[in-house]
């Protein structure tokens, strides 16, 4: 409903119901949490590179702090930072930026809708996410510190942890509620509010990616909600859903009824967490597809194949979760089933990636700034995907499970994968949101330094994985087999700090270009999708008159036409 009276500052910017304002709110909050999670990691890298040594510069301030006496990071603080780094990056950083930020901003524009189907619900989902974020940050100030049993918080360890874990659970319930409300909103918008002539197979691929992501969020999150309620009952009310009988903690038997099953939490958690990791990567593939097609000036190779493999990927992601649990005493029947589904799910990922690479064939590739990031995404996602294969085979997983190989695998998918796609998205749509281009020099510098540094961090992780270094070890060179590869830790930490410095370039560029960036037209990249048909920045209600779509999303270089692109809405 477009109200005609002018809204006050609060209702226009803070409690707004406009999908673009909410999108920007999600994006800014997500970026801030990404930065915060990044800083946690950079401090952990110091402990990993120089175990037991005091932090430089700030050691004197921390002389008598109870958390970090003398500036030396103890195992409890390391575990706390490790758990919160994972939680913040996944639940508070990437998902809100990819689904909340880009999804909210672009989906209504790309399908020709004036706004999301339920604007108030959209605002409610942002503020539920915001409350969840505040609770997660608040848990840092607790006497016992934040949650510290990993971002997976396996019981019984998480049941015995301090009150930070309870804050983590309550925060998670808010975040899950936010994603659930958001996914209902996305699905109804995409199904109901598409412009006239925009059939499902004329939608841009990014909207398809958000559509499947919303389905994953809708159906996979509730089991985590149930598991979080069970664990909250265990911690607060004293039930023992996840505590088996006969537990002896610190020499004294635990006074609980017992009879619980810790593996139950792992099932419920991974039933969510595997679709969750696809929620992290699908919007990224959508963003990369838009940028690559736009910059190769030719239609996407195998649009239908990619959409079907996307749908197949979406459904398969519900039946692969137990490949995270091969080591929990699984028999042959179950592990054979999950190995097979894991191999099957690698096929659509290979198809998606191959179609994107084949799209380059016969194109006329423009090396714009977003294209740098989108092109870098392809080999990085290839490494991330391929290194998942040995982990999917139970026998190879015996050796590689819970080692740094796993950390290298999923970071290759998330860091140079999803984050580079998000950077490509920001550089690509920044002119539409602010009317100005981002600075090219700063952008290129940011790209090349980040690209080299990010590989400097994650490639050695595979070497540590082969050496058998276990993950989540606060003292990296304690075991003989990890002492042998301690050199790689120093190299990785330096790369991490260089990567941190490179992000400053992006932050400066992001805020500076709002005022001093080169003026951009409504369609700076000569793109064909609908969001470029709106004025810059799009007003409330988006389109001056409702668009009518006449063709597919990627009509580039049509022979015998004046321009090498034909927007969807041009009749």
């Amino acid at each position, binding site marked *: 409903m477009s109200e005609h009276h002018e809204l006050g500052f609060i209702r226009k910017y803070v409690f707004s119901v406009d999908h673009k304002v909410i999108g920007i709110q999600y994006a800014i909050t997500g970026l801030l949490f990404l930065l915060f999670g990044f800083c946690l990691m950079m401090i952990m890298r110091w402990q990993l590179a120089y175990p037991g040594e005091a932090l430089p510069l700030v050691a004197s301030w921390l002389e008598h702090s109870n958390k970090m006496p003398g500036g030396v990071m103890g*195992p409890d603080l390391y*575990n706390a930072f490790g758990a919160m780094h994972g939680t913040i990056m996944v639940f508070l950083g990437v998902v809100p930026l990819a689904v909340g930020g880009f999804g909210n901003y672009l989906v209504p524009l790309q399908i020709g809708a004036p706004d999301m189907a339920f604007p108030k619900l959209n605002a409610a989902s942002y503020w539920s996410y915001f409350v969840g974020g505040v609770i997660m940050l608040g848990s840092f100030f607790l006497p016992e510190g934040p949650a510290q049993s990993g971002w997976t918080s396996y019981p019984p360890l998480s049941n015995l942890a301090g009150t930070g874990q309870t804050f983590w659970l309550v925060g998670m319930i808010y975040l899950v509620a936010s994603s659930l409300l958001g996914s209902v909103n996305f699905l109804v918008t995409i199904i109901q509010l598409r412009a006239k002539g925009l059939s499902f197979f004329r939608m841009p691929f990014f909207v398809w990616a958000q559509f499947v992501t919303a389905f994953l969020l809708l159906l996979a999150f509730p089991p985590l909600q149930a598991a979080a309620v069970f664990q909250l009952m265990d911690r607060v009310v004293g039930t023992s859903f996840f505590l088996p009988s006969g537990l002896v903690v*610190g020499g004294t038997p635990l006074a609980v009824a017992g009879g619980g099953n810790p593996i139950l939490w792992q099932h419920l958690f991974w039933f969510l967490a595997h679709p969750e990791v696809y929620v992290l990567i699908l919007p990224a593939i959508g963003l990369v597809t838009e940028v690559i097609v736009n910059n190769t000036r030719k239609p996407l190779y195998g649009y239908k194949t990619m959409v079907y493999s996307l749908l197949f990927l979406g459904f398969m992601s519900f039946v692969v979760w137990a490949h995270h649990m091969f080591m929990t005493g699984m*028999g042959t029947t179950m592990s*054979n089933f999950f190995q097979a589904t894991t191999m099957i799910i690698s096929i659509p990922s290979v198809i998606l990636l191959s179609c994107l690479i084949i799209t380059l064939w016969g194109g006329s590739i423009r*090396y714009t700034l977003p294209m740098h990031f989108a092109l870098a995404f392809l080999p990085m996602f290839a490494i991330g995907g391929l290194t998942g294969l040995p982990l999917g085979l139970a026998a190879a997983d015996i050796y590689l499970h819970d080692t740094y190989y796993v950390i290298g695998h999923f970071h290759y998918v998330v860091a140079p994968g999803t984050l580079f796609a998000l950077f490509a998205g920001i550089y690509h749509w920044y002119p539409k949101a602010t009317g100005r281009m981002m600075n090219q020099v700063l952008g290129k510098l940011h790209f090349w330094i980040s690209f080299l540094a990010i590989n400097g961090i994650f490639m050695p992780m595979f070497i540590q994985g082969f*050496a058998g270094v276990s993950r*989540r070890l606060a003292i990296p060179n304690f075991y003989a087999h990890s002492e042998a590869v301690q050199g790689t830790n120093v190299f990785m930490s330096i790369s991490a700090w260089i990567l941190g410095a490179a992000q400053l370039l992006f932050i400066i560029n992001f805020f500076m270009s709002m005022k001093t960036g080169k003026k951009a037209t409504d369609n700076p990249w000569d793109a064909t999708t609908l969001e470029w048909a709106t004025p810059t920045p799009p007003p409330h209600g988006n389109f001056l008159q409702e668009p009518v779509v006449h063709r597919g999303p990627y009509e580039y*270089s049509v022979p015998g036409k004046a321009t090498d692109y034909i927007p969807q809405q041009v009749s």
Partner: protein
Amino acid sequence: MDSPSIYGWWLPPNLSAHGAIIDQLIIVMHVFMVALFVGWGLFFVYCLIRFRQRTGHKARHDLPHSKVPKFIEVAVVLFEAAILVGLSYPAWSKLRTAFPNKENATNIRIVAQQFAWNIQYPGRDGVFGRTDPKMVSDSNPIGLDLNDPSAKDDITTLSQLHFPVDKPVLAELSSKDVIHSFFIPVLRVKQDAVPGMKIPIWWEATKTGQFEIACAQLCGNGHTTMRGFVSIDTPEEYAAWTAEREKELTP
């Protein structure tokens, strides 16, 4: 610790009978992955150079669909299926169903606790003594019930695992408090110790030496220092060691 470190930047040496198939699987998969990545990479770079934007070069709207990508895709799928059914299924079922029988195996019980590994040997009578959580104390970490006759001769050690070489070891893994993960890199053995569950694992060492046990699952603040020691002895050394332990048992 062993003088020249046997650990380097590649897989540690494999000293267990079943380790060979695991290493083979890892190596085969990585050769396959590198081949795919190099193939993709070459095609990727070739496209970037040949189809870059330059004057006189136009993008082509519709292209003849060559069959090559489909063949490669089918080949990749067949290869993966072959590795899965050919290597991974048998390796896993060998480890999880072909248990050595109790008579000619060294039987031990491993009870993980927050930040140490309790190893329990059945002793001469070959029967493990009963354990009870209520009897746990500092001197008796696994709560051995001493008035049970078969418990009297049980040898229990803290993070000291000794067993003879070239003889299968049948271990029963469980935990007292939280989830740990029993991991010996050189023997390619890794198994979660889940409280409330007794999980059987087995391995057979092919060489003697002193090595370490690591914990692979986050189990609290002491997770990083939860090291155990493995000593693979010759049968004579093992007999001498057990004799010594038995002398300590009878006051």
